[in-house]
């Protein structure tokens, strides 16, 4: 195991524990106290308080759950859509391939944030909607990679041999092609958890991502947008949490890639 993989795993572990302990750590994060509006960090409120006098430590701890959940579930959903379509396109080829891949092209033509902004304005801010939109815009990437991977596996000698021996399409896909082709896609997907979390934060920041009660870090930053001058702590802490989380997934993905391809280890 290389140090990137190790440090990524350690950070992620800490984050998951934090997210699980969120309710305990967060305390009564929703409790307003208008008399303590915008208090800077102090011994009672380590991260300070927000406009309505809520404890920012609690809100940031609570935000971990929304952000992590969105990232993980969005990627799972993306895989659920992208893998079968990619496998179908790659294995059967022909017209099915053309239809699927041209559809993919249309969605790939939208830059991620722009596309998500458009679709979220239609769907409206919300937890389920953001998962759907991220999956809608993300599946073509998965499908493309998986299709290429399936395509190259399809022509491998032992697959050709198995087919000659009378193995059915379904059997071949399930037993030989998918298990062999799935590696690179999963690494890509893992790195994408960070991307999804980042996308969610941008969208929430622009007001079309999550909405209450799912106050993710991006949502907290959107609340703080006008308060740079008076309450910079509202910006520092959610942003740091966000960066560390994305960093964990970046390290994890890179580490895993290097781990699985030891030849390039020294690069």
């Amino acid at each position, binding site marked *: 195991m290389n140090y990137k993989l190790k440090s990524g795993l350690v950070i992620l572990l800490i984050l998951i524990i934090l997210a699980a302990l969120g309710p305990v750590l967060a305390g009564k994060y929703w409790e307003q106290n*208008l008399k303590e509006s915008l208090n800077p960090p102090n011994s009672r409120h380590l991260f300070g308080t927000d406009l309505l006098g809520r404890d920012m430590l609690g809100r940031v701890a609570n935000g971990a759950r929304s952000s992590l959940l969105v990232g993980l579930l969005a990627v799972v959903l993306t895989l659920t859509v992208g893998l079968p379509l990619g496998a179908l396109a790659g294995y059967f080829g022909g017209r099915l391939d053309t239809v699927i891949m041209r559809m993919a092209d249309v969605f790939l033509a939208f830059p991620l944030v722009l596309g998500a902004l458009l679709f979220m304005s239609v769907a409206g801010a919300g937890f389920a909607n953001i998962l759907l939109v991220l999956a809608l815009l993300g599946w073509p990437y998965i499908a493309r990679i998986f299709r290429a991977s399936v395509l190259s596996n399809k022509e491998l000698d032992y697959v050709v041999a198995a087919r000659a021996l009378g193995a059915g399409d379904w059997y071949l896909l399930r037993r030989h092609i998918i298990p062999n082709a799935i590696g690179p896609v999963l690494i890509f997907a893992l790195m994408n958890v960070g991307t999804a979390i980042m996308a969610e934060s941008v969208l929430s920041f622009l007001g079309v991502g999550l909405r209450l009660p799912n106050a993710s870090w991006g949502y907290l930053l959107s609340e703080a947008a006008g308060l740079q001058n008076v309450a910079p702590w509202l910006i520092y802490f959610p942003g740091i949490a966000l960066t560390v989380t994305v960093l964990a997934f970046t390290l994890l993905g890179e580490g895993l890639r290097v781990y699985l391809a030891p030849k390039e280890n020294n690069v």
Partner: protein
Amino acid sequence: MKLRRLFVVAVLMILMTIAVSSCANSKNNKSNKVSKNGGHFSYFLQEPLAIDPINVQESAGFEVARELFDGLVDYNPRNMALVAAVAKSWSSNPEATVFTFHLKHGTKFHNGREVTAGDFKYAWERVAAKDSGSDVAYHLAPIKGFEEMQTGKAKHLSGLKVKGKYTLIVTLNYPFADFPYILGHPVFSPVPKEDVEKNPKAFAKFPIGNGPFMMAAPWKHRRYIKVKRFNKYYGTKPLLDSVEFRIFADKDIGFMEFKSGSLDYAPIPLGQVKATDEEYGNNAVIGQPLLSLDFLGYNSRSRPLNNKNLRRAISYGIDRKAISDAIFEDVRLPASGIIPPPIGGAIPPAKSFETRFTKAKELLKKAGYPGGKGLKKLKLTYISGSDYGPLAEAIQGNLSKLNIQVDIQPMEAGAFFKALHTGDTSLFIVNWAADYPTMDSFIYPLFYSKSEDNVVGYRNKAVDRLIIKARKTLDAKTRHKLYKQAESDILADTPIAPLFYDGTAALHGRDVRGFIRTSLDYTPLEQVWLKKK
């Protein structure tokens, strides 16, 4: 003369804060014998939708258009009383349905041509035409023949007669004593036909008006609008040489720019008002009430809010003072009535929140929900993208102390109004800002049963009769009494809970003199001057 007095000396309004700033200004006037003329002013602006009168709507467009154009009348910036502009006098028939305006001679457009009554007719019909593309044609609705023009049946406003070069006679669809007030809105400005028709698109970017300032360069969208003094202006000429309206996406960004020293005026964004007040003191205009009301609307048509005691309990349960202090930095004033103080009179002193909270609990019990028991979750909506998020959450927090649970749901504008219409929400926060500085513009649109702006669906025949009676009454004092009566009758029914009167939060540079904010939230730039360094 008698009729003129009726309108001109009509409204008595006392603004403590304005009085203070006017004192400061008169002192400056005396001590400075140096020339006030000259100088360049840099003014914060958000991108207006239009500065051509045909489409002037939000306050940014209003602020620019009122410097470029003069209508028949204007408002006294200190008390919003009606004053003459291009019109020198006006009168009404006893039924308040026909108004005659006499224009000043020799007032000029920026192109040098004289402004005549025909220019007003041309301008108004340009707005009212079916294919005008105007979003604000509704301002002309009181004028006879408006509907026929909107449907395309007529080419001219039948209620508009021009007599000679200097007389304009307006016939209305219904009695409306406050009609001259609405003519202070820039949409009623005259425009020179020859320039509009030469190139309408160019006119939208470089409008040629008749106001104290004229365009200096075409409007550079999202960058700036540059204007300069109009030297042939008929009224008191501006002291400044030029003004640049610098366009910003929002107040936060503009305020940072102000702090870096390149703006002479900027609004103070929420969250920084108190700190700014301490830092800039004399140069800040904070908490002066505006003609704008935030209120909590109730869906009184269906359960559970058809219960008046519940509606009152909710209103009593909101700690307006604490909320204003925390999220509005005391810029907004806790409201107890509908008509804001600049025209509605001083706010009566409020009882302490403890007293009100106890009352709220009593009312809740009376309503049949002792301790909130039996009450299901209420939906609270507001238009997404507005700055009502924190307010909605604060109300949610307040009401949870009464054990009333609230679910917050921001909605896109279209969906929001649909929800109000279909009753798909229990509570909603909206703002009502007056188009004109009259009591009528708070009472009639919001509460007259047939008004299209009556978002709460309020119906009360007695109140309707009062409003119509007020609209027929030419005597200002009697008219205002009738409107105040309507206001208190409406409040007794509690179709809304008034929340806050908006207030100013403006900041100007240290060398700026003669700076005021009116209760329609603009600065008359023709009065501003710069102290020489």
